[in-house]
């Protein structure tokens, strides 16, 4: 190590001679931190997203490396949030990568005491069977005066405020066509 680089390794020297007189940026950097690269720099791709928690709608940038979410940051371009995220928004990466996330279908049979596994396609078909059966058993064509009802009150649904508009649109469309009136979401609560 030459004298010059020894000197330059000294933060006070850099602070006095460099572009960082307050010693809060480049001057204070150690060799260790100089060698680091931000995950955001090495990401393969970045998706423009929105925080999934409250309705402020803060902008997020979702960085992806090797097919996995490697970082989620506030989007500085957003006129709503200007790059900021609160504790929840900042925890979004932990949310989507949480080891507690369920990734397989689970099934509890009537009177069962344990969860069992079920194939997704089987589950989808079983649910379709049950929807059709419940609909048939509880179908109401007309009221007491013969006016049309076209409905089932045997099926309920709750949820939507955390979902996308496109999803709510399909849910409402399908349920309406099935005659299933009783769908609700957090907006009622």
């Amino acid at each position: 190590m030459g004298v010059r680089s020894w000197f330059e390794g000294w933060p006070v020297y850099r602070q006095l001679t460099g572009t960082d007189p307050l010693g809060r940026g480049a001057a204070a950097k150690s060799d260790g931190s100089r060698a680091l690269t931000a995950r955001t720099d090495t990401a393969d791709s970045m998706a423009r997203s929105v925080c999934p928690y409250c309705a402020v709608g803060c902008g997020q940038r979702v960085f992806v490396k090797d097919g996995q979410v490697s970082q989620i940051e506030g989007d500085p371009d957003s006129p709503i949030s200007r790059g900021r995220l609160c504790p929840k928004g900042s925890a979004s990466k932990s949310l989507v990568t949480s080891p507690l996330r369920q990734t397989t279908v689970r099934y509890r049979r009537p009177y069962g005491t344990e969860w069992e596994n079920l194939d997704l396609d089987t589950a989808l078909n079983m649910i379709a069977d049950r929807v059709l059966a419940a609909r048939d058993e509880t179908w109401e064509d007309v009221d007491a005066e013969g006016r049309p009802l076209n409905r089932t009150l045997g099926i309920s649904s709750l949820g939507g405020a955390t979902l996308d508009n496109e999803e709510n649109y399909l849910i409402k469309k399908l349920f309406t066509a099935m005659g299933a009136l009783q769908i609700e979401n957090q907006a009622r609560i």
Partner: protein
Amino acid sequence: MAEAHPVGFQWVMEAKRRGAKVFHVDPRFTRTSAVADSYLPIRAGTDIALLGGVVHYILDNELDFREYVVAYTNAATIVTEEYADTEDMHGLFSGFNDDNATYDQASWRYEGHPQDQTTRDSETQRETAAGLENESHGAPVGGETERDETLQHPRCVYQILKRHFARYTPEMVERVCGIPQEKFLELAHAWTENSGRDRTGMLVYSVGWTQHSVGVQYIRTGAIIQLLLGNVGRPGGGVMALRGHASIQGSTDIPTLFNLLPGYLPMPHHAEHPTLDKWVDSIAHPGQKGFWGNARTYGVNLLKAYWGDAATADNDYCYGYMPRMTGDHGTYQQVLDMIDGKIKGYFLLGQNPAVGSAHGRAQRLGMANLDWLVVRDLFMIESATFWQNAPEIETGEIVPERCRTEVFFLPAASHVEKEGTFTQTQRLLQWREKAVEPPGDARSELWFFYHLGRVIRERLATSTKPRDRALLDLTWDYPTHGPHAEPSAESVLREINGYDVATGRPLASFTEMKDDGSTVGGCWIYTGVYADGVNQAARRKPGSEQSLVAPEWGWAWPANRRILYNRASADPDGNPWSERKRYIWWDADKSEWTGYDVPDFEKTKPPSYRPAHDASGVAGIAGDDPFILQGDGKGWLYAPTGVLDGPMPTHYEPVESPVRNPLYRQQANPTRKVYTHPINTLNPSPPQEHSDVFPYVFTVSRLTEHHTAGAMSRNVSPLAELQPEMFVEVSPELAALRGLSHLGWAHLVTSRAAVEAKVLVTDRVTPLRVDGRIIHQVWLPYHFGFEGLVTGDSANDLFGITLDPNVLIQESKVGTCDVRPGRRPRGQDLVDLVVDYRRRSGNLVHRYPPMVTTDVADSSSDQEA
């Protein structure tokens, strides 16, 4: 706001830096209070008394923005002489019907108006939460009104308002809310001082306002103040609702709600809407003024979007396929029906009612009595494991071996694993790009419902039953892509936006919609989001490169307007009220409205335009009537129809209150929605006996670090670490009174449940002097449950079920309870404890608080007028 909407709060701090004064009203001192100029502790459930005090202050001192009020509100409109006020009727308005606890609204109407024949009766309106339809437009009313612009006529709205709020004096505010008069006057002074030509004031509220038995009227009171002060439709003004879920606004606009269809069209009612024409007329009110006159167009476009080629003029566009409401089919009615065995199957889609809904025990017992339950979530939530781990297992009320509910848990895709739009709290749609594929079996709701629909339609392909036609004729042909055959969210957004059937060209505005079947549009208020075939919600022009309005970031409904009713930001002649508050104005040279935002007015209708006598629809709106979705074009200080619990807000006590209403003999909202069901016990309140068994007021709200029912935070380690435990905040005075020690345990008891929590003794909650006595309040977070990294009892278990009559939202921000030291008992002992409280409060056999209490003369201030 700093706690629950922290990033939104940065703008409050920006405003403060520029000289705005910040007032914070909350039962509990929070991070918001810490940086506010003034903090007003309030008794939970008394906001109308506080805000009514502000209305009184404005009118008493004639501090209203008179030019704005005369021109833009209905202050000058004369009301029929049949109208009688709460002043003369101990807290009831004229038209009350004891038999079904509703008002006949006829006597509230404007002078000279016939009673509207197409308006549903009040009971039907309550049962179907008809108030929600007014999220996009006012309730129906004719446009021709009798006016006295001097505001002197004794029956003009201005004078009626003045009289109605006459008793909301500073002394009364102190007596009801527990807010010292000086504090109140400081607020009233600052609010009025900071409103007018040059300045605007903003009112911000959160769900703490909606979850009350008079929730709609809380917000109405805020709106009355803002209208009186000229703070509506102007920059820096308004009533800002801070909603709590990423797309809760979207799920109201494109509703997964029983009583609405997309764009606030009502779900048909069996008696009121037998045909397409009747349905449309009930919305459009033929001859009525305003944009809602085009209801037929919006309705036909929706039906065409649903049933495509099958929907023709000859078959009323398949209107007959629609299911019909017969009454209340809301979530609480459903839960009671589950307990009674009437419901077979239940879908839960990113929602956790076992923790998040009022009366958790009712929720869990309902789920335990189904044939089947489908839970779609990221995490294994309480609503999926109730059969295994609910508190009712310990008490023996749910026994797994005897619980027949079949449960399917299907993992959901997260927000980064699918694409689509959220609508945030200011009606702004923002498209999210997909970052990665969902793991394992996790799928989007778009995938699940598209494929569920596909399978169901395949099963029925050969069906000849009439009931299956609606499914078989449904347009359900969205293109799919990728390994899992994910449907295209953009193609759904395009259908929502609408397009020309012949050419496929996406519509640019709902004004391009036709009522002859030649256009299709799934949600008229969203038309324009896909204008020019471009996903406008995906626009991301940096805020720093745009004006303050940032019109090229996302897309806001309607028509990318960022401030609604912004015609009111100009004076009647079309000039800005002041340079400082310039926003939208009339450009006389170009003969058009212009400004920083999209004008919320017909672009070329001059300020001088006056409608012909018989003009209806949009043509009926004058050039100086900014409220274009109201039948009379005016902002309503007084609602002549459509608000079921009165034309003006009135302070009623919460359904559970330790206090006799100091303002009127009428104790609680006389039109509230009540469920008499064995599981729904309510604590007694004055004038009933034994309210002293539950002497304390409790309220709940959010922590910064947790989210609603906790699924998305109690399963996320950094957040769980930050707030690891259920706790209750109590004042040092109450701690001393009840023998509670800091960091020790306490439990709260109501006639529904007992929940335990760690004790936080803190000055953040303070005893209040109310009507001559000390009222203690306690505060709890409502995020905890029995699953996840951190667990605890659920605060919502404490609540009973009583709803606001307008929108059927439950009162779950205030209730009464007892507070006891130590942990709660377990098993049968827990059941015994709650039963003992019910016995002591005289409520073993159900007694519901009386709806009307005007004959009980123990409300000392309620003198005869």
